[in-house]
C-alpha cells in the first residue's frame, strides 16, 4: 500500500466503503426476506435469488414500457417500479407457497430440492422471455451522476438512493415484525408452531403471507439491484450464496444480527477488493467467517433466554 498517500487512502476507503454500502443494501434486503421465511417455516428458499431477478426484470420491463408509451413519465417510473416489483414478486411467492411449498412442510429437505427446482424453472423462464443477454433499465436522470464532497471522493447518487430505500424497507419490516399483530403471530409461530395453533393462530395463513412478504422484499432488492448492475437470467443465483452467508453469520432469528452481518460482509469484500483481487477478497471473507462461526455457531446475535 506504500504508493498511496494518507489522503488518497482516506478517499479510497470512503469510496470503496460506499460501494460496499450498495452491496450491503442489496444483501440486506435479500437476507431480510430469506431470514423471515427461514425463521417462520424453516424453509430455505433456494429460489430467493430468482425472486430478486423477478423484481429486476419487472423494473426493466416497466422502463421499456414507459420509454415506449409514456416517455414524459420517465423521471418518475422508477418509484412505481419498486412498488410493482414488490407486488409481482410477492404474488409469485404467494402462488409458489400455495402450489408447492405448503405440501412439503413436514419434509424440510424436500423443500430445499423443490425450491431449487423452482429456481431452475424461473431462470429458464427469464431466458425464454427476456433472452440470455443481460439487460439494464434506463435509469431516470436524477439517479445518475455523483456527489463530490471533496476532490478525490466520488459518491454515486444511485448508491445513496439504494441505501435510503433499504433503510425504509428495513424499518418497515422491523415495524411489521415487532409492532403489528401479524408480526406477533410470526414470532409466536417461529418459536412454537404447535402451541401457536393451540392458542388460536392460523399458522398456515401466517406462513403464506410471510412467504409472500419475503419474496416481495426480494423483489424490492431486485429493483434496487438494477441501479448498480445489469440483470441476467443467472443474476439471482450469484447473490444467493452471499445471502445465505449473511443469514447464518448474523444468527437466523435476529434481524439486528442480519443487518450487522450484511454490513460486515459487504464492507470487508468491497474494501479488500480494491487492494487484492475479487476472488481473494472472497476467500479472506469466507475464512474469517468460518473462524467466527466455529466459536459462535449460533451466529453473532442469538437471543439469550432460558428455554
Amino acid at each position, binding site marked *: 500500500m506504500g504508493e498511496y498517500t494518507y489522503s488518497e487512502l482516506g478517499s479510497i476507503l470512503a469510496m470503496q466503503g460506499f460501494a460496499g454500502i450498495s452491496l450491503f443494501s442489496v444483501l440486506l434486503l435479500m437476507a431480510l426476506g430469506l431470514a423471515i421465511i427461514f425463521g417462520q417455516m424453516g424453509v430455505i428458499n433456494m429460489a430467493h435469488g430468482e425472486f430478486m431477478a423477478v423484481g429486476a426484470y419487472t423494473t426493466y420491463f416497466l422502463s421499456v414500457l414507459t420509454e415506449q408509451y409514456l416517455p414524459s413519465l420517465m423521471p418518475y417510473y422508477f418509484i412505481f417500479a419498486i412498488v410493482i416489483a414488490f407486488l409481482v414478486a410477492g404474488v409469485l411467492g404467494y402462488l409458489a407457497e400455495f402450489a408447492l411449498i405448503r405440501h412439503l412442510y413436514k419434509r424440510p429437505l424436500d423443500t430445499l430440492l423443490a425450491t431449487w427446482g423452482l429456481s431452475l424453472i424461473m431462470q429458464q423462464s427469464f431466458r425464454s422471455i427476456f433472452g440470455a443477454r443481460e439487460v439494464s433499465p434506463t435509469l431516470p436522470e436524477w439517479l445518475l451522476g455523483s456527489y463530490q464532497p471533496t476532490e478525490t471522493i466520488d459518491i454515486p447518487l444511485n448508491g445513496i438512493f439504494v441505501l435510503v430505500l433499504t433503510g425504509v424497507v428495513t424499518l418497515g419490516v422491523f415495524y411489521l415484525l415487532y409492532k403489528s*399483530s401479524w408480526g*406477533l403471530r410470526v414470532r409466536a409461530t417461529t418459536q412454537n408452531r404447535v402451541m401457536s395453533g393451540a*392458542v388460536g393462530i392460523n399458522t398456515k395463513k401466517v406462513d403464506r403471507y410471510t412467504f409472500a412478504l419475503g419474496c416481495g422484499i426480494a423483489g424490492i432488492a431486485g429493483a434496487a439491484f438494477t441501479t448498480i448492475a445489469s440483470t441476467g437470467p443467472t443474476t439471482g443465483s450469484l447473490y444467493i450464496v452471499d445471502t445465505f452467508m449473511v443469514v447464518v453469520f448474523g444468527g437466523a432469528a435476529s434481524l439486528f444480527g442480519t443487518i450487522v452481518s450484511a454490513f460486515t460482509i459487504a464492507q470487508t469484500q468491497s474494501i479488500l477488493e480494491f487492494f487484492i483481487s475479487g476472488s481473494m477478497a472472497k476467500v479472506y471473507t469466507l475464512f474469517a467467517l468460518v473462524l467466527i462461526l466455529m466459536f459462535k455457531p449460533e451466529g453473532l446475535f442469538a437471543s439469550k433466554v432460558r428455554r
Partner: protein
Amino acid sequence: MLTVSNLKVSYGQSEVIHGLDFAVAKNETLAIMGRNGMGKTTLFKSLIGILPSTEGNINIDGVDVTNTESYRRVENGIAYVPQGRMIFPTLTVQENIETGMEVSKLKKIPDDIYALFPVLHEMRSRKGGNLSGGQQQQLAIARALVTNPKVLLLDEPTEGIQPSIIKDIANVLNELKKLRDITIIVSEQVLSFTQAVADRIIVIDKGEFIHEDTKDNVNTDVIRKYLSV
C-alpha cells in the same frame, strides 16, 4: 358443553386411548387423574387437535370439531394450557398474552386478567423465558383465558411447582369459576389440588376410565391406590 364419544387415539399402530366417552356440563370442573403414561396428555392433545383422533367425535357446545385444526377449535371455544407450560420464551409476557387475543379480537389485555395474576402485570415487559416455573404457569393460563374459552383444558398445571404456588393456582381457578361461565378439565396427579378445584374426578388407566367420583363422595383411599405406583 363438551361431549366426547368413542374417542380413540393412536401413535402409529399402537392405540393409546381406547374409545373414551364422557361429557362435561356447563360450569363443571372435571379432574382426570392417573399415573404417568396412562394417556392424560394424549387425551388432552387430541382434544385440542394437536394429535389426530383415529375414531370418535368431539363436540363443543353443539359444534362438531372432530378432525378440525387447533386454531378452529380455539375459535369454537376450547383453550389449552399444556403440560410444561409451553409459553413463547423470547416474547415478552404481554406479547405472550396477546398471542391468545387473535381469536377473541380483543384490542387490549382485559383488566381482570391482570387482576387474577398481578405478578404478570409487574413482569409484563420481561421475556417469558425468564420467568420462574410458577409465573410461566400463570402466564400460560392467562394466555388461554384471553381467548374467552367456554372450555379450559389444563394439563398437569401443578407439575414442577412449589406447594404455595399450587395453592395459589387452585385459588385462581376457583375465583375464575365464580367470575366466568367456564368449564374446566384438568389432568392431575396431586389429589389435594384436585379436591380443592374439581366437581368430579375420573381416574384414567391405560387409556380407559376405571373410576369416577363426585366431589361430595370422593373416596380418597381408592383414588390414592390407583395413583400409587
